[in-house]
């Protein structure tokens, strides 16, 4: 029998562990971390470094400290305007998509409704339509001179002069809200649909026995049980809302120009300029300022963080209050 010292035993134990199953979980999750570091952590750090430089992507970057941050928050009026526009869109579209998605999901789950599958598909279809097609569609619908909506309103005698939907800032904003709602209501409906399917039928049957109306069942059973989904969607909508880019961009791009006319950056008087569009235009558009674009990206991140946390806290407080009630 040979003597084995504690160190040798420990070394062998580690070796055994490495050879044994202990190592495998780490190896299997390693690809995720490699990808995470390469595609998430590195760009985050690199973006921050760029934000401290004045760089057009071609010449040598020049370190400017926090000047880009100072510029976007105090000198360039369009960064804060783009955040304001984004908040405006969110203030309208988040309640609409959540409320309409919830109502539609409830209606389509009703046993009395026939052909619910067809309606669900119809409402969901806009979500899988490509943004460019949606942009062209809304351009055609709301064009000042030849838009279908103007033609119908004029034919019905409701207007004497065509309305410049895409040229007047407040109207253009409403069209963007409409576009977003039209596209995303179906997506939200699918979430609620999954949630409603998970609610036990017995709860509704018990409510029926107690003589509860459909409204009471909706407000007292459906909504409370869908609270986690609602919370998730509100938080995600705030994050998605700040990432809004495609819809307004395609609406004011020159897809339909036959003579190579340039699109209108940010819509009429930049009324539809969103935070991401601002970042895109600053970095890759007319300005070519990578540093300023990167600073705007961090600035936007800050707003996303603040608003997501605020929403989270507000919902926790509401949840606690309703629990006490």
């Amino acid at each position: 029998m040979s003597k084995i010292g504690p160190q040798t035993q420990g070394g062998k134990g580690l070796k055994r562990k490495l050879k044994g199953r202990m190592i495998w979980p780490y190896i299997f999750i390693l690809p995720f971390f490699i990808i995470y570091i390469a595609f998430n952590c590195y760009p985050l750090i690199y973006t921050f470094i760029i934000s401290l430089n004045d760089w057009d992507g071609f010449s040598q970057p020049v370190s400017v400290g926090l000047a880009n941050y100072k510029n976007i928050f105090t000198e360039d009026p369009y960064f804060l305007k783009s955040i304001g526009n984004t908040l405006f869109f969110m203030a309208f579209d988040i309640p609409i998509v959540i409320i309409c998605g919830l109502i539609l999901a409830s209606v389509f789950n009703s046993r009395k409704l026939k052909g619910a599958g067809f309606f669900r598909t119809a409402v969901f279809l806009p979500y899988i339509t490509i943004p460019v097609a949606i942009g062209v569609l809304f351009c055609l619908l709301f064009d000042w001179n030849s838009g279908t909506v103007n033609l119908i309103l004029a034919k019905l005698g409701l207007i004497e002069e065509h309305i410049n939907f895409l040229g007047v800032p407040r109207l253009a904003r409403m069209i963007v809200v409409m576009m977003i709602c039209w596209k995303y209501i179906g997506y939200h409906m699918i979430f609620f649909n999954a949630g409603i399917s998970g609610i036990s039928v017995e709860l509704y049957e018990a409510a029926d026995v107690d003589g509860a109306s459909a409204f009471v069942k909706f407000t007292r059973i459906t909504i409370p049980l869908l609270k986690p989904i609602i919370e998730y969607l509100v938080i995600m909508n705030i994050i998605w809302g700040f990432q809004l880019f495609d819809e307004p961009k395609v609406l004011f791009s020159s897809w339909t120009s036959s003579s190579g006319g340039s699109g209108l950056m940010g819509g009429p008087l930049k009324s539809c300029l969103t935070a991401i569009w601002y970042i895109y235009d600053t970095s890759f558009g007319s300005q070519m300022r990578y540093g300023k674009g990167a600073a705007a990206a961090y600035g936007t991140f800050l707003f996303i963080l603040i608003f997501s946390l605020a929403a989270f806290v507000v919902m926790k407080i509401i949840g606690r209050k309703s629990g006490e009630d």
Partner: protein
Amino acid sequence: MKYKKAKRLLSLGVMTVLALSLLAGCGGDSGTKPETTEGSTEEVQDAQKTSDVSDSAGGDAETITMWGWNAGDIEKIFAAYKEKTGANVELEYVTVQQEESFQKLQTTISAGLDLPDIVPSEVGQRGTMLSLDIWEDLSQDPYNFDTSWIFPYQVPLCSNERGELVALPWDVSTAALAYKRPLALEYLGTEDPDELSAMFPDWETFMEKGIEVKEASGGKIFMFASLTNVKQIMDGQNPQPIVQDGTLDMTSIKETLGWMIKFRDAGIVDNILETSTAYSASYADDLHIFYPCAGWSPTYVIQPNDPEGQGKWGLMVPPQGCFSWGGSAFMIPRDAKNKKAAYDFVSWLDSEEGTRSQRDVVGYNISNVEPYKDAEFAALYDDWFGEQNIGELLFQKAMENIEVRPVSTYDATITEVWSMVTEAVNSDKSIDFESACSMFEEEMYTLAPELRK
């Protein structure tokens, strides 16, 4: 036991393949990548400065890499080039969307990737592109491009702010004023281009006549469909630089904006946006008389939008002369691999032989001066313009007094600001001359704060 080992080995193998395939995506083409780190453009530029011009003569065929948006036509042109010159080269054509070419250039450089041998540029972004210190000066050794080959107006459109000729023009971009003959005859009393040109010696007369047309038609007929057209023509006629030595000069902007607002208030321009479908549809209607028209407009704009308009169109010299609109040019990056072969090709495009060949194979009107001295070559007929020789106007008359504004680093910014102000002036009639000018000025200083006041 054996089974367990095999399972473990299989898992390890799958994981390795997965990880390697993912990492391969991050690798890029290390074999051809310049030896620089990201962001170290100084090193890139140094490498560019010291790299030699490659020699295309002899040996295996060189492959020229070219970006662009005319794949089909370029293939035909390249085949003609090889046939005429016997060049031992191949072409790798990478299709890039016209409006994305600048972003592609920017991201390619900042990512440290290889640039192609030939980069195209459309006039709207050309000034910004040419100002980058990455292009070969084609007027210097070893190229020594002879600028007398091309029309004189094209030289400032292909030179950067340091005066270096860093691009070679492709097509002739002179533009005039197209009009619908039936409307001209009915409301202006003639459809003859010379009579119409004589009728409108300046924009003041044009506006007065426009008001008469408006009154005679009960407000139904407009001189132009869009204010953008007015901007396009008047701004194109004005050679006064907008930014000079880092200072914003509003002189030409004020002139153009002044006319745009006068025309809008006089009601002689419709409110259609150039980017809308209504604008395209306006070519076929009987409500708008005049449109700006470059050499490419009949094929790419008028014919598709007015498919039944054969013989319905005329072309005249606009009040105060012709202007330049659009047009492409090619640049050769300093660190391109096949610079000489690339130059041989793009300079052939601008040669007399190249210009004639391109007319034959794709019907393009290219920039070499010589062929246009021949009245037969300069003649250009288009079914939409009936019997009128529009080539005589675009390639001969227009050259007599055309003046262009030199391209500038700020061209992309200026284009963006023009779009915003034009839309605002078009949509809101309460915006007067003063507020439109202030809007333009403020927007320029916001987007380019380094500009001096």
